[in-house]
């Protein structure tokens, strides 16, 4: 136990102190004795981290091992960080108030590139040196996992090891391996032999680390309880994961490539898991989570079964990701008793040509039909997601976003069943070419180009439609990190030293400081973000074998240039490379 008296003292001076105390219902009890101490660290606030499904899975999985105690740590808000510094106290874990420095492992979950200064913030508050070379044998082993690690080079001087892919496949084995001698150096050497593990100090430049993934989702570990936070998390609900991966193959989408193949759970498995979670948490909302839940083959049956089971208990079922099609509308209508919640859809592009370039297999007719159905059923709040800066995009394509928005807006006037005005909003993201996608070869637009295109939209979209857009200066730094290499380690440290932290929050993000950080290292954002790679060039992230072949990515990139589409995995296999290694993909499920 840490210094609880002093902890009490500082908790009096911070907002929502229960975020720092642990003790929530379903928190695991820590084992006595000489077990491995693993800190599961999320480089964002408690509210964000506690909403992340992967964290929940790993937390209960590790605590289920007889030789491991797994505790949680999050990034403290500014007021708490200040108090810790003022009282000269280290950042502590929620379960036993232990300093992160006293753990055997700190496993960071990296879900987006811009979380890295927050990682350094947590290390700094724990008095742990940033660079692995500056850390000693007694310092914790720093692990990184999460989707950012599919290009680990920009962070390979900071972390001791990376887990590439789905960590539940290998963490228990790694824990037992560490338990066999409890020596950091020896462990790192042997762990380098384990599939899915990248260890910068052992693996050379020519390494080729294969991504790990769960083969059978029905047999995979899934917790039958979630910790129930006292404060409101972003998502306070029982989330069951209906499938991993997405069958669609949108060419811009990294998740659609790095979680292949689609792996679905059986309906009965999901029903059981939902029932157990509702019983153990007391939540009154079930969320069917995945990249594209309406594509899950058992979706309709599962929704009906859960609805029938829980409607009388005032427990709702919710679909977080809707496609713009008739099937999704049908389910949404069944589940949403009130029409007050906004329906959200992602057409991604305004023109048909552009949607074909990105392989978003949806036509304008389908979009219009789905929306008129929504209007007729009384929905009058619609939110649409678009992207600009995609490969092969012209100004016409950008302007087509406004054309489509106007068309939707005016179609509502004729379809609306009541006199209520339509609340139509559009969110426009700046495209980031991500590793392991068909667009990995393409340069990102410059910030100026993004701003020019945003102007085109602002000037052409009527004021009644609410238009919001991502900050271009932030998107290009995301682009630089997504596509970067080991030279960027120093940029992160430099940016942190200049005061950058919580960069994904626009109120904290400081483009000027980031520009200086790149310049101080003799680098520029554009040389990474705007770099074009040749189809046969060696890419920084080639040390990772994601399972999808280069030949497939090149073919998809070329088809994009011709605006040709590719069928989804459920319709027809396009031989992306996954089945070559692991056998033919099979997608049937049971009730």
């Amino acid at each position, binding site marked *: 136990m840490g210094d609880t008296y002093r902890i009490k003292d500082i908790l009096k001076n911070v907002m929502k102190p229960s975020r720092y105390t642990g*003790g929530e*219902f379903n928190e695991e009890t820590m084992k006595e004795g000489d077990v491995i101490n693993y800190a599961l660290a999320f480089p964002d606030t408690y509210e964000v981290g506690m909403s992340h499904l992967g964290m929940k899975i790993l937390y209960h999985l590790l605590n289920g091992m007889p030789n491991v105690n797994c505790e949680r740590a999050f990034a403290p808000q500014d007021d708490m960080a200040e108090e810790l510094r003022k009282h000269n106290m280290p950042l502590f874990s929620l379960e036993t108030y232990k300093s992160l420095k006293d753990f055997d492992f700190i496993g960071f979950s990296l879900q987006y590139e811009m979380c890295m200064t927050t990682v350094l913030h947590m290390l700094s508050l724990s008095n742990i040196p940033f660079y692995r070379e500056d850390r000693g044998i007694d310092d914790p082993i720093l692990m990184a996992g999460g989707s950012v690690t599919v290009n680990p080079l920009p962070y390979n001087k900071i972390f001791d090891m990376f887990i590439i892919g789905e960590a539940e496949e290998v963490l228990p084995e790694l824990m037992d391996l560490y338990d066999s001698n409890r020596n950091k150096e020896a462990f790192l050497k042997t762990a380098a032999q384990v599939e899915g593990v990248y260890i910068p100090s052992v693996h050379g430049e020519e390494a080729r680390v294969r991504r790990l993934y769960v083969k059978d989702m029905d047999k995979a570990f899934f917790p039958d309880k979630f910790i129930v936070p006292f404060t409101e998390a972003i998502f306070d609900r029982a989330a069951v994961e209906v499938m991993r991966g997405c069958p669609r193959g949108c060419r811009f989408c990294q998740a659609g490539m790095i979680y292949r193949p689609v792996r679905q759970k059986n309906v009965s498995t999901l029903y059981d898991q939902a029932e157990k979670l509702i019983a153990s948490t007391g939540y009154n909302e079930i969320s069917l989570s995945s990249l594209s839940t309406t594509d899950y083959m058992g979706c309709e049956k599962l929704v009906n079964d859960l609805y029938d089971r829980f409607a009388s208990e005032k427990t709702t079922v919710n679909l977080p990701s809707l496609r713009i099609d008739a099937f999704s509308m049908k389910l949404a209508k069944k589940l949403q008793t009130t029409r007050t919640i906004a329906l959200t859809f992602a057409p991604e592009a305004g023109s048909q040509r552009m949607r074909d370039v990105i392989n978003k297999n949806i036509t304008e007719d389908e979009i219009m039909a789905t929306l008129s159905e929504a209007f007729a059923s009384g929905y009058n709040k619609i939110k649409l997601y678009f992207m600009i800066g995609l490969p092969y995009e012209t100004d016409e394509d950008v302007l087509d976003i406004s054309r489509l928005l106007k068309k939707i807006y005016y179609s509502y006037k004729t379809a609306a069943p009541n006199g209520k005005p339509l609340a139509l909003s559009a969110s426009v993201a700046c495209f980031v070419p991500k590793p392991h996608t068909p667009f990995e070869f393409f340069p990102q637009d410059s910030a100026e180009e993004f701003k020019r295109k945003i102007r085109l939209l602002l000037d052409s979209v009527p004021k009644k439609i609410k238009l919001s857009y991502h900050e271009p200066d932030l998107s290009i730094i995301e682009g630089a990190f997504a596509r970067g290499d080991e030279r960027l380690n120093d940029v992160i440290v430099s940016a942190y030293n200049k005061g950058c932290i919580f960069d994904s929050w626009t109120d904290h993000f400081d483009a000027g400081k980031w520009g200086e950080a790149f310049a101080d290292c003799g680098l520029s954002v554009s040389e990474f973000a705007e770099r074009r790679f040749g189809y046969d060039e060696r890419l920084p992230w080639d040390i990772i074998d994601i399972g999808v072949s280069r030949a497939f990515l090149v073919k998809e990139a070329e088809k994009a240039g011709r605006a040709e589409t590719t069928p989804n995995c459920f319709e027809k296999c396009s031989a992306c490379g996954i089945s070559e290694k692991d056998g033919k993909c099979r997608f049937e499920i049971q009730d």
Partner: protein
Amino acid sequence: MRYRINYRKIASAIYISHLDIQRAFQRAFHRAKLPLEYTMGYNPHEKMSYSPPLPLFVSSDDEYLDLDLAGDEPAKEIYDRLSPQMPKGLILNGVTKLLPTEKPLSKTFKWADYEFTLEVDDPAGAALETKGYYEDPEKPLATTKRTKTNKEALVDIRPLTCEFDARESDGRLIISSFLNMSNESLLNPLTFLKALQENIPALKESETVKIHKIKAYR
């Protein structure tokens, strides 16, 4: 049937806000599979009401909430089902059935017995001075507080308190007092402490270690 739940709020539960306590109870009721009754309307919610909210950082051995349930099960049964579903630091003392004639919680309690533990340089001396000060009606004991409409108002805490005592124990100063708990003139323990610390010279530099509500009286 209406039930009255009596509970303690101690240890790390003192960091949970009143709103979060309500949510924690709702989750616990669901886990305990209690036959909840819901309000009508668009956003149905459980029918429940609370004793006046306890400020953050204050612990209590005697908090209450009333809950409506469908059916008429023995109070013991409700207690047995709910008790294991409570989060750490929120501990059930007991559950009782309420007669239809019972007044609502907001009108039930008149006084709350509080104990304040403070750190001061000379606890024994401070105890004497504090007691003497309180017992001298000529000495001012007023402070400002924020009203519901967010204005500043002056409150004299003397008429809102009774059974006042100050003593030294284990090197610390212990102040105990009954604070008015009735709806119209509720005295917040933080306001009470602020009044003492602002007015009594020996308490100016004191550090609050603990504020604890021992019991609520009708």
